């Protein structure tokens, strides 16, 4: 499991950084779980694999997952498979972690003394948030003190003094860029981590005999990710939660669609939906997911930024997401929209205030907002029989519109 170093500004930073980058390049070298051989043999085509022609030297990990309808996801319980799926393509999310399933690592860290500073990403975030909270307290105190001083000066002498800059030019109120946590803060944050230490020091010698922590975490794949893996790359098999037997492709196709149709039971209904519809949310979201995955992007969930998906160039480890995708389904036939049981989000053009909101949110975090329009074929034009197989995707289409703010005052040159 990768461990993230907190960024420091020491001289060794650049060396550590390049070593870290090289290590990440090794770990996350494969963009897909299935590894194809290097040139020269031409890689096997999708068609060949679908027909079952076995071509040698394709490494297929054959992971396994269980369908869970209450969360509309596929759970990968084996940690080996889970780490593999995460490291090759950043599929899925650990359910007890922020992204990568690192719960076990955090528990182990919490047990041991974290003196080497090998923190997981959650711990880094927690430390950063504690520091920022302290900075805000410091700043509030400094502002209050400066205001009080200015007030006193005004009352007594009628002088108006600046509250942010002292007469000699230094800043009275700290700015985030230059504030440094004091020693007391570091000791405080170090305290909770080492508080279990007194209990463990007695058992230090018996560390090996301590009961190993049971990993209760699993990797959770959305239905779209799971379908992408099993249909295109054939590296995932999904088990029926009731019977623990692998499901066939058509059963999965039906079950995933039925997951969005409200039903009384939680067992997957493996037969075709009673009235298959083109605007099933699974299909719409899958089309967008597949489109961007096929272009090479790493597609992750975008709920933190009011969007549906986030696009990463190589992965969340390497850089921040550049684009936030909002899926906007467009009905060819308005009558389909009225008769739809799904009530898809964003199917009608939204109001300017909402567009402005998501645009601002994403501009604040330096992401570009992209509206992905998915056209839904009309039931009058295409019969719904095509929905019995994934070949129906050829009837949809995806197109993007980039939304940005236009500030005339800055576009004058």
């Amino acid at each position: 499991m990768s461990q993230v170093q907190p960024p420091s500004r020491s001289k060794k930073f650049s060396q550590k950084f390049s070593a870290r980058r090289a290590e990440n390049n090794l770990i996350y070298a494969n963009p897909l779980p299935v590894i194809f051989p290097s040139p020269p043999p031409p890689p096997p085509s999708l068609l060949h694999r679908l027909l079952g022609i076995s071509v040698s030297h394709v490494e297929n990990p054959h992971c396994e997952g269980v369908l869970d309808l209450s969360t509309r996801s596929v759970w990968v319980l084996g940690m080996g498979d889970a780490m593999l799926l995460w490291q090759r393509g950043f599929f899925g999310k650990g359910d007890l972690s922020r992204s990568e399933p690192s719960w076990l690592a955090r528990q182990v860290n919490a047990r041991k003394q974290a003196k080497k500073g090998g923190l997981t990403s959650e711990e880094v975030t927690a430390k950063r948030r504690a520091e920022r909270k302290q900075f805000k307290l410091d700043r509030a105190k400094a502002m209050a003190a400066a205001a009080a001083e200015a007030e006193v000066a005004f009352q007594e002498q009628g002088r108006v003094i600046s509250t942010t800059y002292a007469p000699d030019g230094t800043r009275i109120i700290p700015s985030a860029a230059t504030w440094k946590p004091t020693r007391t803060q570091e000791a405080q944050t170090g305290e909770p981590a080492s508080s279990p230490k007194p209990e463990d020091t007695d058992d230090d010698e018996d560390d090996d005999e301590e009961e190993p922590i049971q990993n209760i975490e699993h990797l959770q794949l959305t239905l779209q990710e799971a379908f992408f893996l099993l249909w295109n790359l054939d590296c995932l098999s999904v088990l029926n939660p009731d019977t623990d037997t692998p499901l066939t492709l058509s059963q999965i196709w039906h079950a995933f669609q039925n997951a969005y149709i409200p039903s009384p039971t939680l067992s997957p209904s493996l037969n075709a939906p009673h009235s298959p519809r083109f605007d099933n949310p699974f299909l719409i979201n899958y089309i967008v997911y597949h489109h961007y995955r096929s272009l090479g992007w790493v597609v992750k969930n975008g709920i933190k930024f009011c969007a549906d998906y986030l696009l990463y160039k190589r992965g969340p480890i390497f850089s921040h997401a550049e684009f936030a995708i909002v899926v906007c389904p467009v009905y060819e036939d308005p009558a389909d929209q009225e008769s739809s049981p799904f009530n898809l989000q964003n199917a009608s053009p939204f109001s300017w205030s909402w567009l402005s909101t998501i645009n601002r949110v994403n501009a604040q975090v330096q992401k570009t907002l992209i509206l992905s329009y998915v056209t839904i074929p009309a039931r009058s034009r295409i019969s719904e029989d095509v929905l019995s197989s994934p070949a129906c995707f050829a009837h949809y289409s995806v197109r993007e519109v980039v939304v940005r703010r236009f500030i005339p005052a800055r576009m004058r040159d």
Partner: protein
Amino acid sequence: MDDVLERPSPQQPSSKDHNEEDQSSGDEDGGLDWTKLPGPGTTARPVIPKRGEKDFEPTQEGGSGLQLHVLDRARGAMVEALRAGRSISSKSISYGIWYPSIDRVHVTTARGIHFSTMGHSVARGVSSSDNPGDNEADRPLNHISGSKLPKRLELLPEEAIYLVERGALFCYKPIAQESIPGDSLSPEEISPGSPMSVQQAFAEMIGREGMTLERYQVYAYLKRLGFVLTRADPPTIDYPVAAPPSLPITRSLDQPRTVWHRLAALFSRLDVFKALRFIPCGHLVPLHKSSLSETRSIPSPESVASASSPYKVFFHVYKPSTPFRKTAPPAPDFYVVVVNARTTAMPSLHELTSLFYVLPEMPLPPPRKRGIQASTKKPNNVPTVKSPSSNVLGQASHDSSRTAHPPIQSSSQSAQPQSPTLFQHLTSFIPLFRTTAPKQITTPTFVPNRPNPFLALKTGTKTIVVAAVDSGSISFFRFGEGVFEEWPMA
């Protein structure tokens, strides 16, 4: 005693503040710092200063004495600045007459720099054989015949209101109801007395010739910033418009890919990504609409953008630096649509497509110069109005796998032994070299140093600016046509 507030502080503009200002809305959102404006006596144009210090909340008991003092100063400075009388030299005042019947202001005396970018000349006059009010625009203007009509300068309503608001135009309204627009009378003869007030100008001219309050607000805002605005569709024949960009020939979905990309694709072990691209994507895929006939795939501007849709380009906007000639305007820098934010929703896909349909493709903005590399990375900067089919962005590989068929083709090709495939690719490409020589020859040199894909992805090929006016607050949005399928990451 308030020297500190008067003098701009030297330490304030730090780099961090600049950074924040880039992110934030900047000058046009916040209020001015009125204390830093020059007094009413100065003739220098006031510079919009940086914002002053701002407290977040009043201290207890309704604000401290210092805070109240600062507030009072700021308020007083604002009132003083606004109270100052605005003057204009009498030598730069223009005079005009407003004719409601034709919705135009005829400028009898034009002075000042404004008329280099505003107004258009119309040949209008009274001759015995013609009806008053007849436009006679269809008569060739240069035709020397018995009745050569005098050309005169006329202003559209928004231009007139703008100039009246600035104080650069004295506009008169004829008292007599039967005034003939073709009369070349001076203002004094028409309407003795005082010129129209700004209030009267608004009342008279808003609502005429498609000029609503929202459109005027956008017009005035952009004009004040220095842009040059013209209307997109001419209200009369005399109105000069930019030559419409030659409508894009329907780009074939199968663009020839460069030799290098085919080679790279052959040897790439990520060919699986290409094989996955079978979902139809991109703006060229026909957009079906149940109300249209099935055969008309690409919506023509008239079909969707009927009178019911407010999404039509209304203004052509030129940057202040663009050389603008009134008689032959160049290609506009921005296309602006003005809508009322409360009554009109965001454009739907059909409206956006019909808007994009009429726009030309813009070249990429040049990347920021990074020393020597700028020369190799710089894409073609010449506007593509003249040759819209030469897609400057075509340097990237165009995915031909838009339907289910090409992947099967590519898979069969890749199954063959390599050298004939390579040879086939090369030979198949030579005819393409000949037919589209000017474009293709340049592309191989670009491919090894591909321009940054993110620039193209973030700007898109065509951009439309929509101004959503919400009771006076204008929000501008740029909608760009995305080209993700042309810039794959793998």
